[in-house]
């Protein structure tokens, strides 16, 4: 397949979106939107597969495929162009592959909805933006995709726009993302200022060159750029402090949650950092910060997930938590780990969301864990599909999540131990392990609650599927939960489940992803540095020191790159093996605890919960972070707005009016002289003459 076809990838979904928009216009046309959308995502997937080998082999300038120049002012030039390297291809696989599956599922899930066409328009548009994001050859085009996915997220979260909470959630998502985007935009500005270009390939290669130059002195811009870009990543990928929008975003239809808010969009931040990792390496504090935030977020969100009762909220916090892992991965200088986890997470989290969607669909919109139990009989397929997803998420040995999570934890541990080990990474690795325990626990808490135990369920009020006449064929037996149809809903789930179980093994044992990352810009630049100059440059002490151990991954594949570092390599390998054991144990422990508390002995759980009422309350209310933000940021700003408005009206405009009154006031003050009395006038004239005469004499003599 000719490589040029890759240029079409974003535009096919866009065309699909336009067609869907056309379908919106007439009710009769609406049904066509689903297939159109699926096709518009699936064709790019086929193209991705078709050009994969060609694209992976691109060298040098060929990697940049330009369509046209988007904007240019002076030296600032932005192309509508794509940067094709293996990382791009991995991301394209995830986006179009998972996207096609989810869209297919959605054809069934959204069937009969009034906004069916609108939904698929949003999905196609999203895929356009997301593919643009991952393919962009420059930061501004990346920003276009970045904001574009934000917009689609907004539109899709607000899909049920008659529900105030959906509207609020959509708004929140967009605005919180905007906060991050501002950082990103400023990061772009600073990048342009520093590198005189916004082209990703040039920026990264320049950064690599700086890193390789032992005499290079970091500028303050070098220190700041990563932090600004990071802000964007935190917003998009829902990290502390900007994670608050993601749980609320579950107000959107479930396929949206799966596609946008689990599999693809939220991982954009990870992708961006991985893509620009040399730039991040230039600042000695950037990657440790990323790792720290990631680790803390992972733990923090994991604890919240423990006590949520809303099915999708649990997964939402789980997503936040897993994204934290990914950041920990890239922060630990293992962009492979981050991207690997991104890849596997896309499968199992999409699967989990979609199966949750099936449950929700079956229970007419019921999402409360307390209102359902023992559904395995009613929905066997869903039950075991979700089980597969849960295993992967919990990191059950040899599932996808196990390998990817393990890679990250091991990398962190490698950074945290050894002769140059940094305590920070050691602690982060420990936090990661703790989080793994929590993950296993809350995942299976959910699964056991829903599918095990005595059968019991309360139907929801079917919000989201409301007031639609065409919708009824599925709900003729609305009082009984029912299994989903195989086509179009369960078949994609099976594919996802397959991925959730086996993707990790494939990646781990074939090593293609590691190889891909190495040959892309996402590869940390230290290996190069070490080869050319064993002495780390002083400016990057923290990272480079810890990075002397970094060659272990590459060493397995490229012994040449690791010459003289086999000791380190051995150590790293040992840690990897050790961590596999530990995390297997932890996963099993978590699953066992969950089984005990949420399947076998539920009353005990309630007692324990009652005993730690305060803690549960705090966790249930998500540490009151939303309230905190509301109190500290939203309310004051709005009060400020009211204040400014009043100030504007009273003081600024009042001042204008007052100034306008000055002439009037002056007029009133001299109006008495116009008394109408002739003597008065005469007196005035005479006085005037006298004053004039006196004045002139005073002046003249």
């Amino acid at each position, binding site marked *: 397949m000719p490589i040029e076809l890759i240029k079409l990838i974003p535009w096919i979904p866009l065309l699909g979106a336009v067609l869907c928009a056309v379908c919106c216009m007439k009710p009769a046309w609406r049904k066509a939107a689903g297939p159109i959308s699926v096709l518009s995502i699936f064709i790019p997937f086929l193209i991705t597969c078709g050009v994969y080998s060609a694209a992976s082999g691109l060298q040098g300038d060929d990697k940049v495929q330009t369509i046209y120049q988007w904007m240019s002012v002076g030296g600032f030039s932005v192309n509508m162009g794509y940067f094709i390297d293996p990382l791009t291809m991995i991301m394209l696989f995830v986006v179009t592959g998972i996207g096609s599956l989810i869209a297919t599922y959605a054809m069934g899930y959204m069937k009969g909805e009034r906004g069916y066409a609108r939904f698929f328009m949003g999905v196609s548009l999203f895929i356009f933006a997301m593919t643009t994001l991952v393919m962009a050859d420059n930061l501004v085009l990346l920003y276009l995709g970045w904001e574009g996915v934000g917009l689609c997220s907004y539109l899709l979260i607000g899909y049920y726009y008659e529900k105030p909470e959906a509207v609020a959630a959509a708004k929140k998502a967009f605005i919180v993302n905007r906060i991050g985007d501002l950082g990103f935009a400023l990061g772009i500005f600073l990048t342009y200022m520093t590198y005189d270009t916004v082209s990703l390939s040039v920026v990264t290669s320049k950064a690599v060159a700086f890193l390789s130059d032992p005499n290079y002195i970091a500028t303050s811009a070098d220190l700041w750029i990563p932090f600004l870009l990071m802000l964007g990543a935190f917003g998009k990928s829902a990290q502390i402090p900007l994670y608050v929008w993601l749980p609320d975003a579950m107000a959107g239809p479930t396929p949206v949650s799966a596609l946008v808010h689990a599999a693809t969009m939220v991982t954009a931040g990870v992708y961006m950092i991985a893509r620009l990792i040399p730039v991040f390496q230039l600042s000695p504090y950037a990657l440790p910060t990323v790792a720290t935030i990631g680790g803390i977020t992972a733990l923090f969100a994991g604890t919240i997930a423990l006590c949520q009762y809303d099915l999708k909220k649990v997964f939402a916090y789980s997503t936040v938590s897993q994204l934290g892992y990914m950041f920990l991965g890239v922060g630990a200088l293992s962009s492979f780990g981050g991207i690997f986890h991104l890849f596997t997470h896309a499968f199992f989290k999409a699967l989990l969301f979609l199966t949750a969607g099936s449950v929700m669909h079956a229970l007419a919109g019921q999402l409360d864990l307390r209102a359902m139990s023992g559904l395995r009989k009613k929905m066997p397929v869903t039950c075991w599909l979700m089980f597969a997803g849960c295993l992967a998420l919990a990191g059950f040995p040899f599932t996808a999540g196990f390998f990817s999570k393990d890679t990250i934890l091991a990398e962190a541990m490698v950074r945290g131990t050894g002769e140059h080990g940094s305590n920070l990474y050691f602690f982060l690795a420990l936090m990661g392990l703790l989080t793994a325990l929590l993950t296993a626990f809350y995942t299976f808490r959910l699964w056991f609650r829903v599918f095990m135990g005595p059968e019991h369920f309360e139907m929801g009020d079917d919000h989201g599927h409301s007031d639609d006449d065409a919708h009824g064929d599925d709900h003729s037996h609305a009082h009984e939960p029912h299994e989903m149809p195989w086509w179009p809903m369960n078949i994609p789930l099976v594919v996802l489940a397959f991925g959730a179980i086996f993707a990790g093994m494939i990646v781990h044992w074939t090593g293609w992803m590691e190889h891909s990352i190495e040959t892309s810009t996402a590869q940390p630049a230290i290996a190069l540095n070490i080869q050319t100059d064993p002495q780390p440059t002083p400016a990057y002490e923290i990272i480079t020191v810890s990075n002397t151990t970094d060659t272990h991954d590459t060493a397995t594949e490229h012994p040449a790159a690791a010459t003289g570092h086999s000791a380190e390599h051995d150590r790293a390998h040992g840690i990897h093996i050790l961590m596999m054991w530990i995390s297997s144990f932890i996963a099993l422990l978590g699953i066992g605890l969950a089984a005990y508390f949420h399947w076998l002995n539920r009353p005990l759980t309630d007692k324990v919960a009652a005993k730690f009422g305060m803690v549960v309350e705090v966790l249930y209310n998500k540490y009151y972070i939303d309230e905190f933000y509301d109190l500290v940021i939203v309310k004051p700003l709005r009060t400020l707005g009211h204040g400014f408005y009043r100030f504007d009206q009273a003081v600024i405009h009042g001042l204008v009016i007052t100034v306008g009154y000055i002439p009037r006031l002056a007029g009133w003050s001299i*109006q008495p002289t*116009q008394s*109408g*009395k*002739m003597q008065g006038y*005469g007196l005035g004239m005479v006085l005037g003459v006298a004053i004039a005469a006196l004045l002139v004499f005073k002046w003249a003599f």
Partner: protein
Amino acid sequence: MPETVMNSLTLSHFLMTGAILFCLGLVGFITRRNLIIMFLCTEMMFQGVVVTLVAFSRFHLNDTGQTFVIFVLTIAAAEAALALGLVVLLFRRKGTLDSLVWSQLSG
């Protein structure tokens, strides 16, 4: 007037006289309310100017000033005629010569 007195009078005496006449007229104009008297006050001011003019004429030893006086007197006469006509008109309207009754227009 005896010669001696004339000789001892200087220009400034005449100017003073003129100025005093002028100022009296001014003060009168402002203080009196009777229209006719007010008009006479303006006439007095004119006469003050006339005295000044004649004095200057004498001082400069040319007769331009005196010529001026003739014209001033003519204008004064014309004004007087006008004034009287106006006063008659006004008196017929209001039945009084008080200038303050003519103060409806103001502001």
